[in-house]
Structures are given as structure tokens and as C-alpha cells.
């Protein structure tokens, strides 16, 4: 009932405390509200339920001849499945692991030595390496060669040369029978 001037309210000591408390409460609430409101929007960009439901893929290995490979799609990504020859297995196991950039034994990478299962994405910047078809370049280590920046992988999919930092990733997979696997 007092001031009609064009200024913000002035308060007594007591009033100021109460006012500050109210401002803080309101501001805090608004911040919490904004954050919880933002989450559904952000989460909507994550994979949808139907995408997540496609998280496993089964593959039939019986038709892959020794020395050849197939590519199956798992979660939208290529998975290389190679039926390795005895030579290739030998080449992979003979390497001195300590000399590797990303040291891993062949036994750790293949559940059964003749079957090598890997995600076919170069660990450098996501290109798909060549080497699946017989006609494609395999690089000097007899595995895969990435055409983008020249990374070369050996017959166990381990990085041997070029810019990629890591070996090709081995996904989680289980043998359902001797000739079928489930990836994921």
C-alpha cells in the first residue's frame, strides 16, 4: 500500500530472507522440472523397443566351405564368419603375442579354432575391411585390409599395420549346435 514507483520491491531483512527462499525454491523446482522434462526427449533418440528386440541373430555355418567366409547382419552391423584353413589357424597361433599392438591370443578370439566370428568394422573409423571374398585384397598378413586408411588385419582379425588401434571386435556368441551360432 505504500510505494507505486517503477522499482522492484524493497524488503525488510526478514522479508528478504523469505523472498530469497521462495526464489530459490521456484528456481530449483523449475530446474528439476526442465531436467526431467528433457529426459523423454533425449531418450526418444535411443534405439526403440523393436530395434532392441532384434538384438540377436542366428547364423548357419554348415554351408561355409573351408577357406571362405560369409557376412551376416547383426544389429545393423556386418559380422564376418570365416571358416579358417589349418594354415590360417597356424599363422594366427604362431605369432608372438607380445609383438602385437593389441595383444590377444588366437584362442581367446575364436571359441572353435576353425570358426572366426568378428564384427566387420575397422576399429579406426568404422569402414568395412575387405577380405571376405576370395578376390578381395587381404593385406600382407592374410586377413583383412581396410580400404579407407590402410589398416591391415591378420587371419585372427588382429591389427598388424595401419592406423587402427584395436583388433576387430569379437561379439558375444554361442554355439547352439555344432554348425549354428547365435550372435548377441
Amino acid at each position, binding site marked *: 500500500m505504500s510505494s507505486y514507483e517503477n522499482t522492484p520491491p524493497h524488503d525488510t531483512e526478514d522479508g528478504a530472507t523469505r523472498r530469497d527462499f521462495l526464489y530459490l525454491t521456484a528456481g530449483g523446482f523449475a530446474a528439476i522440472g526442465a531436467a526431467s522434462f528433457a529426459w523423454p526427449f533425449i531418450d526418444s533418440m535411443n534405439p*526403440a523397443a523393436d530395434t532392441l528386440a532384434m538384438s540377436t541373430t542366428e547364423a548357419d555355418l554348415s554351408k561355409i566351405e573351408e577357406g571362405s567366409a560369409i557376412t551376416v547382419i547383426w544389429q545393423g552391423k556386418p559380422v564376418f564368419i570365416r571358416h579358417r584353413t589349418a594354415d590360417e589357424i597356424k599363422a594366427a597361433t604362431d605369432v608372438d603375442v607380445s609383438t602385437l599392438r593389441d595383444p590377444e591370443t588366437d584362442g581367446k578370439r575364436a571359441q572353435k579354432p576353425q570358426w572366426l566370428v568378428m564384427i566387420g568394422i575397422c576399429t579406426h573409423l568404422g569402414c568395412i575391411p575387405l577380405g571376405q571374398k576370395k578376390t578381395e585384397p587381404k593385406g600382407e598378413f592374410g586377413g583383412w585390409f581396410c580400404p579407407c586408411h590402410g589398416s591391415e588385419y591378420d587371419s585372427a582379425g588382429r591389427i598388424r599395420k595401419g592406423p587402427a588401434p584395436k583388433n576387430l571386435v569379437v561379439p558375444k556368441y554361442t554355439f547352439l549346435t555344432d554348425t549354428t551360432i547365435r550372435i548377441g
Partner: protein
Amino acid sequence: MSAGPREPFENPVIEWFDSRLPIFTMMQKEYGVFPTPKNFNYFWSFGGIAMTMLILMIVTGIFLAMNYTPQENMAFDSVEHIMRDVNYGWMLRYLHMNGASFFFIAVYTHIFRGMYYGSYKKPRELLWILGVIIFLLMMATAFMGYTLPWSQMGGWAATVITNLFSAIPFVGDSIVTLLLGGFAVGNPTLNRFFALHYLLPFVIVGIVFVHVWALHVTGSNNPLGIDVKGPQDTLAFSPYYTAKDMFGLAVFMLAYIAVTFFAPNMLAHPDHYIQYNALQTPAHIVPEWYFLPFYAMLRGITFGFNLYILAGIGIIGAALWPVYTKGKALKDPLLGMTIIPAVTDFGQYSKKFFTMLAIAGVVFMLGYFSQTMGLPLPFSKWVLLDSKLGGVIAMFGSIAILFVMPWLDSHPVRSARFRPQFKVAVLAMTASVAILGYIGAQTADAMLFGVIQWVYIGQILTGYYFAFFVIILPWLSVTEKASPMPNSINEAVLQENARKAGAR
């Protein structure tokens, strides 16, 4: 906008920024200390509420578009994919769907406030016109969004609305084909509607910016409609109105949350959940509720405009000539003959005015009955404007007329508080629109109390709607005596506070 003289900020980061781009100075000027009339009621919160809804619609829309597919065989499925599989997709969709309704509630309230308190009057005509443009763009955007789920309702709404343009003589059918990108609603229609539905909201944002700019040039109107005379009449926008608007917004959001989460389909219709079928129209198609008043006007014109009806309109025009020209005579420039004499005293003219209106009414009704009930009158079959085109003109005209409202109402007093006759007329107009909305939702042959078809009530209300703008506003501009007004906003506020204190 302009830099102008700038007060430095204490915070060095803000100061660094502001001295290079004075955005903080601008915010401070336009939303901080901006002098705002101290007597706003909560109707003045609806502009900010509408802006919040616009932003909310754009944000939810962008995230929906990330999961939507504008293709005729996939659109409906992609919406269901959003509703079922996308994380919180159902929430985004329901927020967007009901957000449209709440956006319109806010904007209709905002428009009503502008009318009731005379915010369209000088010097805010351009501000008002920009608002009408926003309203039109909103309607276009909402209509196209209605089509996107590719449901029975949406697809057929697209058919009906685009067919409105077929009423245009000679080129109508070509225009419809152009709009649809085919000979019927199909994939090209859906694609362009999606493109435009995504674009137009940003155009709206641009015009809202100009709308607010214009507002900050003229300053806000207020419930008394009288001009701000000095600093004693105003308060700083912040914190006073930021606090008040935040509270108003919060209350509005409560209603929005309640509908979205507890009755999300209250304003929808079962036909939204059936995929579009080009070979079967649903039994009863209706537009969204916010279009219903205009839809009722479209359906209300069931008669062609023959010579009698046009003559009636002509007589009304003649009666209104002195009103529009503030009393000037109409002379034939060739013969020098006076067709309509000059008027100096509108009190005296009123008798003549109402007699002419009565005659016009009789002539109009004769034409109307000859069209609708077959009253045998000579030449009554000569229709210059058929009912289809008439309905389309009525529908678009009902919005177009808002553009000229600042000139139809030239009464010097703004607020309906001091204009008792205008107050009744404008409230009756608002009620008419509400009832027209009810009528728009009825089937074409629905009856009131089993006695009279709603369509006839709709015709009367449509007539009143146009009479309000074309006849009543200009007539009241020259005749209505305003009731006594306070000298200043501050004085009125002081009196009101004293009255409240006394009541306590």
C-alpha cells in the same frame, strides 16, 4: 535491436559479450525494465502462454519427425511405431496432439482479450494484423499436421479442405489438383504437407518475433484501454510480470498435463486410429474442434445468393455509407446528383438507418426463402454466387474480416469496460462463435429440441458474426457514448486497492 548508449555490466563475461553483441542490454531493455501497465489481469498472460506452446510444439514436433515417415504406406505405421516402440514416443505424440488444442485455446483467449479490450485499435493496428497472420498460419499448420498420421480422419480432412478451393470459378479444379499433386489425396499430398508442416512453425516464430517487436514499439494495451501517461502507471516487466505470467503459465500447464496424461484422446476421434482408405469415407467426419466454428459457417450457407439477397446487402451498404464515411454524402460524379445525403447528426440518422436495415432484412429474407423453400418470386433463380462458393467465402471471410477490424471499429474508447453496448455485442459475438463450434460438430441434419435444425441456428449466428463486424462496429463507432473513465491507470489502481482494503 540498436546498440545505443549502453550501461556496462559488472560481470566481466557478460560485459565482454555485451560490448560486442548487446544482446543482454536488449534483453534488459525489452524484458527487464520494460515499462508495462500496472493493471494487467490474467488475460494478459495468454500471449506468453501461446508462445510457450509454440516452442513446445516445435520441440515435440522435431523429435516426432525423427521417427515419422511421410510415405502413404508407412505413415500410419510409423506413428504407431512412435506410440508403441519409441522410448517415450507415446508421450511426445500425445503432447504434440493435445498441444495443438491447448495452443489454440491460448490463442483464442489471446484474440478474445484483444477484441474485448480494444487492443487492435490505433496505434496497434499492425500488431493486430500480424497476429491475424499468425492465426492463419497456425490454422494451415494445424490442418496439415492433422493429415500426417494418414488416418481416415486426416486423409479425408485433406480431401474436404482442399476441395474447398474447387469452389473458385473456372480455375478451382486446377488449383485442387495443384494442391494435391495428383487427382486425389495421395503420396505427393502427404509429402508436401509434411514439408510445409515442418516449415510453417518457423515462419510463425519469425512473425511472432515481429509481432512482439511491434508490441514493444507501441507498448501494451491494458484492461482500461487508456494510454500510459507516465512512470506512475507502469511497472518493470521483470520481476512483476515475469512472476505473474509464470504463475498463469503454470496453471495452464496443469490443465494441459491433466488432459495429455489422463484423457489424451478426449479431443480426438476413433477415426484417427483407422488407416486412411481412399475408397471409404468415415460416416461422420469433423475437423478438429478449433476449426468447428468456421466449418459451421461453411455448411451454413445452404443457399445461393440471388438478386434479392444481393439487393438486401446493397441496401445495407447504402445505409452504412454515411457511417463508414463519418457522414459524407455520396454524389454521382457524372451527373453531380446526390445519391446519399450527408449526415451531421447520427442520432437523427438512426431512424432512417434502422428503417433501411429493416427493408434490407425483408428483401434479404425474400431472397432467402425463394432459395431455400421455393418461394415463387420473379428472377429468384438467378443466382450470382452459388451456395458452395458462398460457403467458402463465408468461411475465409470470417477470418479475413479480422484484418480490417481496426478500421471497422473507429470508436475512440478501447476497452469494453467503458462501452456498454460494444460489451454486449462482443460477448454475443464470442458466444456465437462458441455455439457455431457446437453446431459444427453436429451431423448435417441434427435438430435442436427436435423442432428446428441446427443449421438454421447456425445461419442466424453466422449472420450475426458478420453483422457484428460490418454493421454493429461501425454503427457503434459513431453513436456509442462511453461511460466515465478514470484519469489514469494509477488512479484506477489506487481506487481498486482502496476498495479491496475497505472490503476487508
